[in-house]
């Protein structure tokens, strides 16, 4: 698998969330994703960026344009050094909310992408990687 290009954005303010959405849209369009796929990716990015900001107390998102043989992909890796998620399985359940709004963010985002990886440690932070393939 080859990395075509990458870029990292800060996720520290709500204005940053808008930037993340816009970059996700641009890169997805460049990679040739159709409109529906683009929208799914941008929406998932928005959800996870908001999680990173609201729950993770700010972090970063790394964009990776990938090439895996015949197919192209876009991967977004959200990382924060926030409180971490104590029970990932619980958090991934539809309708779950901690009041600080993790809500649909995780479970919903997973349905919008092809690959979804999450790892988290209480007190250390969270890392979520989503990938959509064309």
């Amino acid at each position, binding site marked *: 698998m080859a990395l075509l290009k990458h870029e990292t954005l800060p996720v520290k303010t709500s204005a940053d969330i808008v930037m993340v959405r816009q970059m996700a849209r641009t890169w997805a369009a460049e990679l040739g994703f159709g409109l*529906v796929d683009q*929208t799914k990716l941008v929406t998932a990015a*928005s959800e996870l960026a908001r999680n990173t900001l609201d729950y993770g107390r700010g972090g970063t998102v790394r964009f990776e344009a990938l090439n895996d043989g015949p197919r192209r992909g876009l991967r977004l890796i959200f990382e924060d050094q926030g409180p971490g998620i104590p029970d990932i399985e619980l958090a991934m359940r539809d309708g779950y909310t901690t009041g600080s709004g993790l809500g649909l963010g995780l479970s919903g985002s997973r349905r919008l992408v092809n690959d979804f990886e999450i790892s988290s440690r209480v007190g250390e932070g969270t890392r979520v990687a989503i990938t959509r393939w064309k």
Partner: protein
Amino acid sequence: MDKIPILRMGAFLLVTIQVDMHDRLALTLQDDLTNRIVETGARGVLIDISTLQMVDSFIGRMLANIASMSRILDAQTVVVGMQPAVAITLVELGLSLHGVRTALNVERGMELLKAAITPNVDGSAHGAVEA
């Protein structure tokens, strides 16, 4: 853009969301709308999202909140012009937008609003679609 403009059309208020809103802008819109409804005594709110390319859970909640708050203030809300890609994504996301009425375009939305505030003799309203 600092604020999203709210236009008045008779007994209705019309809001066209064209920009990629950041969270603060969305919250400001909620406040502004509720204030305007009270100021003008509006009976209906039409929110046009036909140029909105994405609706995430935050914006979805904003729309649902606006619908609830308006109802408390005796006004009906209709969201119009949702794009197919947005609708498909919302369904996948699992966002139901309960309590938010929708219509295909501004024209239909107006019809819905008029029917909602002046129902037919038998109590039914034509073309009403509640999400």
